[in-house]
């Protein structure tokens, strides 16, 4: 019996994950569609205002395809999305895909930027804390991360604005010039929001990293490594780190999803036209088609990130490769 995880095993693992990825998307699209359907309020009458005659509303409903059956409308929506057609916004009167993609060009770079900052900060900090367990460095780091989690990020964002934009004039206080106009300035304008988003995430991640490393350092194979002649530091880097990554990856996956959709407040503080603000506006204006599409995109992003995390698990841990 050959138990070795060969390339076919990894391939099977990936295929099965892909399958579950696709099924999750289908399930999510049905739920989103159903939820939007049961929300009270008629988009047609909302668009036309209070004084619109019933005939006009009926005509608009017809034009928007609101009168056809549920299943037809669902299939229409899904097939449209598969072709990149997300419908037309009721309020803006422009294709939703344009609206959303413009926002995504801010939200995705911002989320990646924040995640990068958070990881770059959290990994060394967690590693140092674990290596200096119980020593003043560790206690100091633990206190600082506690503070980092406790501070609300919008308040921290405002502090950043006061210090770096108003006092020091290093950054602008808000707004976004656009990538095509000025790349570096655009990146710069995302810096403060990214820092504000990254700090609490980095604090959480550093703590997870530390405790996961400490768990791993207590394992028998670390003792084996030490008996081979590895120093404490070598054992930590060569044997503990990779084993400690599984819980860290899980948290990172969750954080990316949060950063993508959860940045509404930060987007407001810095006047960034991101996806969070679009959804917020969509909801208040009952622009259901925008909400529907944007939420679907977020779901897609979350599931895609989880899929990636699953694949990374298997890269990190050979024991997971043979299993589905």
């Amino acid at each position, binding site marked *: 019996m050959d*138990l*070795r995880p060969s390339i076919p095993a990894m391939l099977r693992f990936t295929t099965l994950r892909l399958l579950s990825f696709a099924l999750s998307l289908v399930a999510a699209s049905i739920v989103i569609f159903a939820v939007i359907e049961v929300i009270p309020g008629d988009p047609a009458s909302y668009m036309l205002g209070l004084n619109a005659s019933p005939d006009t509303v009926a005509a608009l409903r017809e034009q928007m395809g609101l009168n056809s059956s549920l299943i037809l409308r669902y299939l229409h929506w899904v097939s449209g999305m598969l072709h990149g057609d997300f419908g037309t916004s009721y309020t803006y009167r422009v294709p939703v895909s344009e609206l959303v993609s413009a926002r995504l060009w801010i939200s995705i770079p911002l989320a990646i930027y924040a995640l990068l900052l958070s990881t770059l900060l959290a990994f060394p900090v967690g590693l140092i804390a674990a290596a200096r367990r119980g020593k003043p460095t560790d206690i100091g780091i633990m206190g600082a991360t506690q503070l980092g989690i406790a501070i609300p990020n919008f308040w921290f964002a405002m502090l950043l604005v006061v210090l770096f934009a108003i006092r020091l004039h290093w950054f602008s206080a808000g707004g976004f010039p656009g990538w095509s106009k000025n790349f570096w300035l655009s990146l710069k304008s995302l810096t403060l929001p990214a820092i504000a988003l990254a700090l609490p995430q980095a604090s959480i991640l550093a703590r997870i990293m530390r405790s996961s490393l400490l768990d791993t350092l207590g*394992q028998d194979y670390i003792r084996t*490594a030490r008996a*081979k*002649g*590895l120093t404490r530091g070598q054992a930590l880097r060569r044997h503990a780190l*990779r084993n400690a990554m599984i819980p860290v990856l899980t948290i990172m996956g969750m954080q990316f999803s949060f950063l993508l959709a959860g940045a509404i407040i930060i987007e407001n503080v810095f006047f960034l036209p991101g996806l969070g603000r679009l959804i917020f506006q969509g909801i208040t204006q009952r622009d259901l088609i925008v909400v529907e599409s944007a939420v679907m995109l977020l779901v897609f992003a979350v599931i895609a990130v989880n899929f990636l995390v699953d694949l990374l698990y298997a890269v990190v841990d050979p*024991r997971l490769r043979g299993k589905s």
Partner: protein
Amino acid sequence: MSLLSVQNLSVGIHGTPILRDVSFEVRPGMVFGVVGESGSGKSMTALALMGLLPDGAETSGQATLQGQTLLGLPERQICAIRGAEIGMIFQEPMTALNPVRTIGDQVAETLIVHGKANRSEALKIARQRLNRVGLPAERFPLDRYPHELSGGQRQRVMIALAIALRPQLLIADEPTTALDVTTQAQILTLLKSLVQEDGMALILITHDLAVVSDIADHIAVMEKGRIVEKGPLETVFRNRENPTTRKLFAASNHAPQRVVRAHTEPILEVRDAIRIYNPSRRRLFSKTQGLRAVNNVTFSLKRGENLGLVGESGCGKSTLTRAILGLEPLQGGEIRAFGTPVGPRMPKSQRAKIQVVFQDPYGSFNPRWKVVRLVAEPFHLLENAHLNRRERVAEALESVGLCADDMDKFIHEFSGGQRQRIAIARALILRPKLIVLDEAVSALDVSIRAQILDLLADLSKRFQLSYLFISHDLGVVRSITDRVLVMKAGEIVEEGPTEQLFSNPTHPYTRQLIAATPRLPDDLKPPHADSKGTA
């Protein structure tokens, strides 16, 4: 001339003395056995020599390896000695290897960290070492991961990485305690050949006198951090001058006194039991049969009988146990206890009739519960059970040799042996007639094990208990059971009265198991071994 010389080694951890004035010498090519109960300081001695003591340990005394001092060296220097001059292997092969790195990588690392080879050379040498320990390239390529290997194979990898740089001294800390008898025999043979062919010295730490008698030249007996007796194996074994040595011998040969009450009425009947794992197919288009963990097993257990079930790990013992406890369904056949069928959906009243004691005295209790709650837990199987709960718990604790006041303590306040007594109290509280003992004494020291075996024999007499005693330890099974079943690959291959089966095994597998069990050679017993053994 000695290879390793240890003089007056003392270790304290936060002021508590752990080792006191330990002195011994090891010559090249010698097998030096260190025996004693757990907590006697055997492992601490090894860790002190390796410089791997826990934080807060203070060491005094001297230890030299070929004139080079070992104690109190700065990290860099001791790291250069560890793995290169002294190799070490440990008890738990299942967890001692890094699960995310290949075996070749882990063996090669020993060479790489010491700067003795670059990566490709190191892998070549790793290949040779793995061949040397009996893991040939065809079946065990370098890119295998630990989880693809059995416990015995992992222990071989451990040995390969410990001998990668051909150290002059190998320290083996209970290297075979977690292994089956047949695997244990193979590993011991391998260690012996490393000493004989490669001229390495070996320090073998074990609690098992039979294991050292098989392999060691010299031994040291430890108790409470001291060496109480040492010398050539034959002299120590024959003279047994120190009371600790005599106590160890008595405990390892211990057979509790039992009264055999042969009833004919069966209380547990297993008929044609079949248990298949993964009966569903894994892939879409290929039919897989699943694993038949228990295959057509039939036996019965009579009232008052102590029935043993032996076999290697993976033979289906534990699966059968879970089916008997009604925790898992059968795919064929049936199990009846006290005339009523057993299964996952059996009523609580039926469940109350069979209780169980597991192997791990540490993992089988909720650490946040007090003993009274732990012991009273089976009461949820009965109605109106909260009536006089504390009295019942007190009674159960007293019957296992603890006192009633212990019920308000937490489990961490007890030793391993006491915990196993609490586990037995929990099994007794419903006054069952049948107790399943699943490796119940396997994790215990020889002398604690002897006490628990006595307790079990005594309880069986007092409460007319029947036991189904599951173990891989043939010696223990021989001492406490009336009848034995031998299980291999899901089937019962031999069955018979204990003494008859052990003295006259008929199935080749039983013979193989008995032959692999290490035994104290008869010629090393003192003239009046029998009188001393039972004293």
